[in-house]
């Protein structure tokens, strides 16, 4: 298969990164001095039996090396300990949180990509004109705004128009599926928009520079010499080629998306992974923090791998 070793290399890289993340996770949370952080069984409000069970499960009395192995085994079973805060299994909390985060972040990112690409292409196309300068200035402006501050700005501006907290209306009794979806979307508007605006700025700049780079390539001149109209050239040649650097750069922005979602969910009390991190920090809920961190890292590694494979599909030159 063409480029099989490229795929293998990227997958191997992802796997090793995951392993490093696991080691890091373990090291940070179990090797810290003092037991405040390391003692998983210190669940407040738990019965002595539960505490004892956890201590046994995670082998808290054994050597660090053995603990690491046990940690991996438990992880494979989906056991990440019990949350100090609500005494629920961490994995259960995280699953709910993740399913809440994905739609909101997904929507915001999607809008950012679509509009960012549009304005990026326009800015490159209209190089040297006022349109370009205005577009870049706006993009830079949004890019420079701290995510949480922009979130607060939107709350102030749209107070009363869009809900500024939570994912659902607690007073909505027994909603139909349709009502529920509408309710969620309503609540999702501001947080997703915040994320979208901040990312849009960055993507505009990325797409613009990718397009400018592409438009300076020789095959564009050839296309023009062949008699193609400018719009057709952009569509058939430029955009397709610019997708390559754009994919790479959007993958790089994944870290930014993660940071952004943590901040946005905190401001809007959106019950997702980001807010889980915030609350875990606030309440010193170390098992939750450890679990959430791992999930975040795994998500980033996963999406990076997806981007790598996408790039591979898009660029026929990678076979070598």
């Amino acid at each position, binding site marked *: 298969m063409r480029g099989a070793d490229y795929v293998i290399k990227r997958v191997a*890289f992802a796997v*090793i*990164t995951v392993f*490093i*993340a696991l080691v*890091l996770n373990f090291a*940070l*949370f179990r090797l*810290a001095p003092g037991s405040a*952080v390391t003692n998983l069984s210190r669940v407040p409000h738990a019965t002595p039996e539960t505490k004892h069970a956890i201590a046994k499960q995670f082998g808290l009395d054994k050597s660090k090396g053995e603990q690491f192995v046990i940690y991996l085994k438990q992880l494979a079973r989906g056991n990440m300990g019990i949350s100090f805060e609500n005494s629920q299994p961490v994995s259960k909390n995280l699953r709910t949180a993740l399913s809440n985060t994905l739609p909101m972040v997904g929507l915001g990112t999607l809008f950012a990509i679509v509009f960012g690409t549009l304005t990026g292409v326009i800015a*490159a*196309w*209209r*190089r*040297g*004109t006022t349109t370009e300068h205005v577009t870049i200035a706006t993009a*830079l*402006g949004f*890019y*420079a*705004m*701290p995510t*949480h*501050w922009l979130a*607060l*700005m939107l*709350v*102030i501006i749209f*107070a009363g128009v869009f809900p500024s907290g939570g994912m659902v209306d607690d007073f909505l009794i027994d909603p139909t599926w349709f009502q529920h979806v509408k309710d969620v979307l309503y609540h999702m508007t501001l947080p997703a928009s915040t994320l979208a605006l901040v990312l849009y700025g960055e993507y505009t700049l990325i797409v613009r520079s990718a397009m*400018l*780079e592409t*438009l*300076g*390539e020789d095959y*564009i*001149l050839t296309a*023009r010499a062949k008699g193609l109209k*400018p719009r057709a050239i*952009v569509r058939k040649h430029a955009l397709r080629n610019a997708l390559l650097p754009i994919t790479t750069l959007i993958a790089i922005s*994944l*870290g930014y998306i*993660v*940071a952004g979602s*943590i*901040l946005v969910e*905190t*401001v809007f009390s959106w019950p997702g992974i980001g807010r889980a*991190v*915030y609350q875990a*920090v*606030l309440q*010193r809920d170390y098992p939750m*923090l*450890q679990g*959430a*961190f791992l999930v*975040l*890292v795994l998500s*980033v*590694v996963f999406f990076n791998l997806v981007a790598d494979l996408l790039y591979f599909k898009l660029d026929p030159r990678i076979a070598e």
Partner: protein
Amino acid sequence: MSLLLQEPGLLAGDRPARSRTGLLWDVIKNQPSATIGAVILGIFIVLAVLAPVLAPYGLHEQVGPVYGHPSWAHPLGLDDGGIDMVTLLMWGARISLVVGFAATFVSMVIGGTVGLVSGYFGGRTDTVLMRITDYFLAIPDVPLMIVVAAIWGPSLFHIIVVIGVLLWTGTARVVRAQVMSVRERAYVKRARSLGAGDLRIILRHVLPQISPILIASTVLTIAVAIFDETALAFLGLGDPSRISLGKIIENAFQRTAISSGAWWAIVPPGAAVALLILSCSMIGRAMEDALNPRLRVSHLSAKGFRLRPLVGRGPDAV
């Protein structure tokens, strides 16, 4: 904008360019975006450094009611402790800038060294170092910063180290690329064949050539460091004994500034951060543009080439 046309007869790389540390000043003078950025940054630095002298009121001095409205005496109003916002902003900028610069310094030292060693010595060293860099890059930095800060405890020193240790990868890559190209230049090879030691070559030939790109990368890193500090402060991981711009926003958030309608407690500190990040970004990007010869002519644009009616020689002859 980069130079589109090379001067005839001058082949780049033939001999070392004139000292390029003047490039920063050059760019600031000639590129309007960089000039604006430098002016804004300069104002902030001056205000921050001179905060103890210039601040109109005391940092802990209650001069009015909780969330007092903006007035002539207090153009940006008061925070929830009755403290003047302008004073808070100046002192806050101080800490934010300190963290930004210090963390960037740490990352510049690490990144610069890694890039230098990796690019200069190449081979196994390079492969190993670049692998490590790749893995560092693969782990998202903000969650890691949060975790480390949460475990290690919030203090200015910890924050600076945590941010610095996670931001060096960009600088490392950029420096490495530049070092690799400098390494191949004629005068470096000559120096080596004359028996100059590695350290000497690095100090005398390589460092001056990479300093422009290092500075550009550093300026851009400052923007990110400032953002990271505000993010950490917002999540409650900032140094509790210091006021930074991020902390001001966090305070406002925690203490119901919004529901009290006290927008002045939120808008100015965030705007200040945005301005800082913007100005650093503008300077950094302008420098990158000046150093990056790859920004060639676009073959395609909304405007086409222009026509002029048939003339003799010279654009002004009729």
